[in-house]
């Protein structure tokens, strides 16, 4: 029991920066030499030990894509995109992965307005724009207060900054809201049946395949209720999905 506990603790321990860099380089070298299994194992170790930076997640997803493991590839690339939303490489490899997907969601409206807004904008850019305008507005107010004659121009400048900060601020808030409240997952198994009710042996309404990104609405035991971008919903075994 104690040995198991010790092993468990060791298994969850973090790498030192030197160890992590070593594992990273070995995995990257294995990929360069065509040993995809060794590369995948190396990057997965880093993730399992808590060193899941955007680069590690991107590499893990790219290796999975090269291995033909579409579900794993999309899962790790989506996680990498969350960690680094501005990376062109992540977007490019995600596009490659999507082109290999079996499912074509017909009649999709791109999800809710908030989801479309979030999909079509960068949280980082919005956040920085909002922060800049917000700070500029208050700096103008501070300057006006510190000046003896309190010029009205500074008041108008502050008002303009706050007005312009409203749009990026709201969009940024939408990003935070979606990120904090929307659960998303990726289909990992080659084929997963989506049932009308969450019970084993229930009739499958439709089937989804590896690499498809879905929204998780609720949980019921071993089943998750998922919604596709076009609004199609069903209960699927949680074991067939990976949370982003």
């Amino acid at each position, binding site marked *: 029991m104690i040995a198991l506990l010790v092993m468990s603790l060791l298994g969850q321990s973090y790498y030192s920066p030197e160890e*992590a860099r070593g594992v990273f380089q070995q995995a990257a070298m294995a990929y360069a030499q065509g040993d995809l299994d060794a590369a995948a194992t190396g990057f997965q170790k880093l993730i399992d030990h808590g060193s899941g930076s955007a680069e*590690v997640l991107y590499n893990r997803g790219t290796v999975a894509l090269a291995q033909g493991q579409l579900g794993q590839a999309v899962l790790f690339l989506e996680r990498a995109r969350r*960690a680094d939303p501005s990376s062109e490489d992540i977007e490019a490899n995600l596009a490659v992965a999507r082109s290999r997907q079996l499912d074509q969601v017909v009649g999709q409206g791109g999800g809710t307005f908030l989801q479309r807004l979030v999909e079509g904008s960068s949280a980082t850019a919005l956040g920085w724009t909002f*922060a800049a305008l917000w700070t500029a507005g208050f700096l103008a107010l*501070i300057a006006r*207060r510190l000046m003896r004659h309190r010029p009205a121009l500074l008041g108008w400048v502050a008002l303009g900054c706050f007005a312009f900060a409203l749009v990026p601020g709201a969009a940024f808030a939408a990003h935070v809201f979606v990120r904090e409240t929307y659960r998303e997952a990726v289909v990992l198994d080659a084929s997963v049946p989506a049932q009308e009710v969450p019970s084993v042996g229930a009739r499958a309404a439709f089937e989804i395949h590896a690499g498809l990104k879905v929204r998780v609405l609720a949980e019921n035991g071993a089943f998750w209720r998922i919604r596709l971008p076009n609004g199609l919903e069903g209960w699927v075994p949680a074991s067939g999905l990976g949370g982003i």
Partner: protein
Amino acid sequence: MRRIGRALTVGLVLLSPVALAAEVEFSQSVDRTEVGDQDTFRLTIVASAGGADDIRPGLNDDFEVLSRSTSTQMSFSMGSGSPGMRRTTRYTLVLRANKTGKLTLPPAELRVNGKVYKTQPIELTVKPGRLGGSAPSQAQRPSRFPGFPGFPGFPDDEEGGGFPFPDMDIPRNDSDLFLQAALDKEEVFVGEQATFSVYLMSRVDLTSVDQLTLPKLDGVWTEELDSPTQLAGEQRIIDGVLYRAYLLKRRALFPMKPGTLDIGRVEADVTTGFLFAGHRIHRKSRPLTLHVKALPEGAPPGFAPSNVGRWTLSVESEETTVKLGEPATVRVTLEGAGNLRNITLPRLTGPEPLKIYDPTPSDKIGTSRGRVEGRRTTEYLVMPQQTGTFTLPTLSFPYFDPKRGEYDIAQSEPITLTVEPGSGAVAADDGSHPKNVLSGGGLRPLRDRSDVERAGKPWWRTVPFWVVTALPAATWLALALVGLMRKRLAEESPEEAQRKKTRAARARLSEAHKLKDSQDGAAFYGEVEKGLLAYFEGNFGRPLRGLRRDALMDVFVQQGISADRRARIARVLDACEVGRFAPGSSTAGRDQILQDAVDAMEESR
């Protein structure tokens, strides 16, 4: 020894008076005395006098004659008397019993010079079925070297194409001419070849085979192996009977589904004899059954049910080094035995910079020992789009080997193709086309470095973000609070304001007191008026200077100032107005004015 050996019954004609007189030897013998009713056996009659026409075999309906042959042997003898020639005739019949039980071959007769000689009868035991024995039970080609069957280079049991001649039985009726359909195997796997042959076996002269009708085969892929246009027979001995065997049709059958495959009868119309003496005969073969086994479980990924046989896969390129813009020809070849026409080759793949055009397929199918074999080749034109060294990966072809009964995978070797810069093809060298096309797409490369930091929270959850966002607002709020506090601190209470106003009014009255004796009456009265109004401004909290007199009095009324006091105030203000505009007035009344002003102020407390 007696049972298995050759039983010999000899008619000792030499001991008979007739024979002794003529010195004629006449006997008959069989090669076996115990046979099956499906077996054939040989009866040999030997006579030392007369010819073949003089011999009458003693046969009855219990026996069927399958063939007859005669031979004559001459010998020269030098006896004690005069030398002489001796002629021996051998009459051989191949027989088959028509019923079982104890049967008797009657004596044979020989008629020479009006004399009749007889042999002894022969007792035979006939049992049901086939017992085998010394008579050839398999179809054999007559040996060219008697006594050396199977001599190397001269197979006795194969046809010209190397295909083994099938076992067959002579039908009880139509034994002179019969149609035989045969399969080389009774049981095959799905997709495995079974060879179906149709023979016409004849002991009569044939003119032609006018019509041949083959059974319809559902669920079977067939491949024509042999279909002679002319009758070309070869001699075969079936159960000791000499036949001419004519191959009419040979097909390879590849069953597509498991189960029992029933193959119906083959029918043929045959014309026998010569010219006008010939007549047409209709013959049918016996039906056949082929058992088709399903392929076992555990097929490797990518296996197709038609991939049955023995195969080797190879990928070859005519060039391993090409100039940019020049195509390389790569051939994918599958070679082996099996249903080649129903097989799909794996598609050649390669890295993005190698543009692979649609292939051109070609087949070379032949037969060997009745088996379909050959090669299928797909030829690809590979056009490099970039310089560099590229690898065409290994191709795999999973198949089922029916001989070993297990799955296997044929794999090719990878091919490395080096693309060098150069003049390239005409199309690439005329200046109108780019030479090194660096097209996008494919996977982006891995990141070669990472800070391998621990996965953290989103940046909007971090303290620095909130510090940066909240700091300007907090600073402004702090400044606003400080200003408000300073303002609050700077504000005075009404009592204090009144006191200040009162102090200011008193100061003005004090100033007026100093001026009461001066010649400048305007200054004195001005100070008195200002002091009085300043006092009441402080009390009322509103400006009073500048108001007309009636408006001023209304303010006093509104503020509850008594009529006496209003009158006193009005008197002071009137005096001040007169004094300011009548500078020559005396100083006598100034004390009173000053006192009235003080009284008006004091009264208000």
